[in-house]
């Protein structure tokens, strides 16, 4: 889902960069007031965790595999603001250090994965949890993947790289499948972590 350089046109790149920059500024202010001086080490090591977690491959169907995105996981563990910072750091490292995702598309990638992902996940979780916590975690993870795929398709279509009507269906379909894996893994991980902290409090 990482858009490379050259796949977006100028207007899309500029608009998405401006949007994600504004979102990050807001997150940084919010996190500073919540975490205080602990922000850098705590977020840095957890960003490294998300980076590593994205290397967890899981089988999807017919021999193909997907990897974790971690937007909902990060959002549940650190809240949407912290998650957006952590995921942005991961995207920057992937872009500049590993050439995974483009520098001119960095704004778009941050918007799709690091901003939309955790905030939508947070919203879905808050909405669904009144019925079932497990289902809420699962759905938040699934939806965050779908939203990322939708936004990616929309940006590619707006840039004229691919036509909207041809790209949306396959993208969403593939990511609907990947999202199931993301959902199950996120559920198991969140339950485990919560259990740990519940025991810690005792």
């Amino acid at each position, binding site marked *: 889902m990482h858009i490379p350089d*050259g796949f977006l046109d100028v207007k899309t790149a500029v608009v998405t960069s401006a949007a994600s920059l504004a979102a990050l500024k807001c997150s940084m202010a919010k996190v500073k007031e919540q975490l205080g001086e602990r922000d850098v080490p705590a977020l840095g090591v*957890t960003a490294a965790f998300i980076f590593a977690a994205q290397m967890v491959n899981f089988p*999807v169907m*017919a021999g193909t595999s997907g990897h974790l995105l971690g937007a909902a996981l990060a959002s549940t563990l650190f809240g949407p603001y912290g998650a957006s910072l952590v995921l942005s750091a991961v995207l920057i490292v992937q872009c500049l250090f590993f*050439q995974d995702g483009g520098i001119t598309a960095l704004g778009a990638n941050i918007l799709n994965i690091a901003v939309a992902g955790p905030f939508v996940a947070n919203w879905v979780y808050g909405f669904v949890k009144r019925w079932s916590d497990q289902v809420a975690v699962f759905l938040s993870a699934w939806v965050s993947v779908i939203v990322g795929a939708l936004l990616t398709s929309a940006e590619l279509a707006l840039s004229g790289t691919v036509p909207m009507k041809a790209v949306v269906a396959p993208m969403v379909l593939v990511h609907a499948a990947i999202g199931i894996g993301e959902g199950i*893994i996120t559920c198991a991980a969140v339950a485990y972590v919560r259990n740990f902290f519940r025991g810690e409090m005792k």
Partner: protein
Amino acid sequence: MIEKVDGRVKLGTSILCVAILSTFRTFEYLAAYLGFYILLLSLTGFPVIKWMRRISLPALFVAFMSAAAVFVNFWAGRPTAAMDGAVLFLRALSAIVLISSAVYSMSLGEFLFSLKALGFPEPLVNLVGFTIRYANVLVEELSRMNMARRARGCAEGRSFWNMAAMAVLGHTVAALFLRSYERSEKVYRAMLSRGYGGNMKSLYPAGRPKKSDFAFGALAAGVPLFLKAVEMGAFAWITR
């Protein structure tokens, strides 16, 4: 050669070049630029073979993405699908080439300092520094955990319908998180004990970029600018 250029200039120029190149529409110009740049690198003693091995994976990935775009466009009935895909691929590839050659030819300290100098928000750059430092540690932990799982007879499931195998992956992720959480507490304590008072101070020893650095920058950015001008028809009166 490229190793000697100031990191700020190098990174800034590369990003600028990528921005210009990503608007190119002509296959030939992109191919010409790419050939020119790689030739220049190898002539100035850049370890080209080693570097190419390192970028082979992202190059493969953009090839795959471009192929997907060709497929979708072809399916949607666009007649220029194949050529468009080729242009996409070359744009993405030249970006990989530019950024990676700049980043690989400077130290991590210089890289982070350059990011700050180029206007990336400072807290975010500090965060990136920590991420790089601990990504290595945690990826190694994860790979040992994966190995330990295999050593204990775990066979990865064949699809996500194998819920037990997926739950095992979830537990691995959770255990990794708890380890990283414990580590972040320890790192924080270590920082405190070494005088950390709430803000990371910049330590990188760097002076001002030299004139030769700027000359390099102008030259490096000039070539794609010139090509872009040609592509836009600025010199059409010559060929006419």
